[in-house]
């Protein structure tokens, strides 16, 4: 294969959209006739049955596309929810949404003590959580999706495991949100990035928790 044909093949491979012959000529610093010649060479290489890819002319340009023979295997490989293992940050964020929904991002951040932005974005992208209106303060609220239930093998949200199994101090389920927020404040106060005044804040919260929570 000529070098120009190889370069054009690589460009069509990379580009998500069809590329016009004019553009191919421009970026390869060749004239359009030369490009047309190289494309003819590619046409030959990609003759039906030769490859799993096809060279197609669409929307005023050239593009590579897969041969339909690969369709069902492609569906099995790619048309399924992406379910890589959850990172600790994602698991934390997802559990907060699952147990407290609907819940806003600032609340998630407060509970975790660190920002939940990228974890939230990933969970949305994977279809595990979705937006669910706005809080009275205008913050977007999140809830889990049916896909979430499916991927966790849960019949409904009621089937979520009882937290007390992992909780050193099981208390009323109703107090979950409050207790999480308190724990989150302590965490944020003592955190790595706790800037100015962090020690004082942490102490304050700690003594407040000591005074209130422990005695009850």
């Amino acid at each position: 294969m000529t070098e120009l044909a190889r370069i054009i093949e690589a460009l069509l491979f990379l580009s998500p959209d069809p590329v016009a012959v004019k553009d191919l000529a421009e970026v390869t610093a060749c004239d359009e006739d030369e490009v047309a010649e190289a494309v003819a060479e590619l046409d030959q290489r990609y003759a039906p049955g030769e490859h799993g890819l096809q060279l197609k002319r669409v929307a005023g340009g050239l593009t590579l596309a897969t041969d339909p023979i690969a369709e069902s295997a492609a569906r099995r490989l790619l048309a399924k929810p992406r379910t890589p293992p959850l990172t600790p940050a994602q698991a934390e964020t997802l559990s907060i949404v699952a147990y407290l929904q609907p819940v806003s991002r600032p609340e998630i951040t407060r509970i975790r003590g660190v920002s939940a932005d990228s974890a939230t974005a990933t969970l949305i992208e994977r279809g595990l959580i979705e937006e669910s209106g706005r809080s009275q303060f205008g913050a977007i609220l999140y809830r889990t999706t049916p896909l979430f239930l499916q991927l966790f093998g849960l019949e409904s949200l009621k089937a979520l495991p009882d937290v007390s199994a992992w909780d050193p101090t099981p208390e009323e389920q109703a107090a979950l949100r409050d207790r999480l927020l308190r724990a989150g404040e302590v965490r944020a106060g003592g955190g790595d990035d706790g800037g100015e005044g962090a020690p004082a804040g942490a102490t304050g919260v700690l003594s407040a928790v000591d005074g209130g929570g422990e005695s009850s």
Partner: protein
Amino acid sequence: MNVAAILDLDLEVFTGPFDLLLTLVLRDEVDLMEVQLAEVVITYLDHLESKGELDLEVATEFLVLIAALLELKSRLMLPREDEDLLDLEPQEAAEELLARMLDAQRYRRAAEHLTTRLEGEEGVRYRQAPLPPFLRESRLEEAVAVYKPARLGKAMGELLRLPPEVSTSHMTTQRVTVGERLAHLKSLLRRGATTFDEAVKGADRVTVAVTLWALLEMYKSGQADWQQDECFGEIRIAAVEAGGAFARAAS
């Protein structure tokens, strides 16, 4: 000529005159931890070499500045999780340090290898196109349970756990207030004149320092007077009654 103003630095985290770097470090706008002070010293040595002469005054100024930065940085670098190095015998500490330097060298070379490797992959591009439409719709009924619900319960339980209190055991736990030392000084002075040594007998360094503050406070408010006849000599302290304790003429 001010060395800080004329020394032009070109560091990884900062480019500009040395005095600007100092300002930025003091304002916390440049993280001292990320400044390679050795580079600053090398720049200074280059500067010296290009000038061909050693101006002692400028050199002194530079030494003072760089020493201050070094001390500040070494304090910042004191490891929080492993203070083991401090407890080691000098010989052991040297061995530990050597091991760390060898480690650093090893990974610096590994870094060179990685950099070369990345350069070798220069020009290799991967496709980053969205999936065609027929693959984008993932059907709910095809989703199978891959995650364990317990993962959520566990994450929640961990969030409920209050984080352990930050350990301050490495700091002097003894707390002494100016008020306490004031009371102490006053009780000594009630029995008559005393000396600073007496006031801080058997005390640790922090207490000595705080006692000095207390004494300054008493001096300022005119409750006590003090006197030292020679450097490192005894500091005599006396309560100031109306009219003053020491006959000023005596000093």
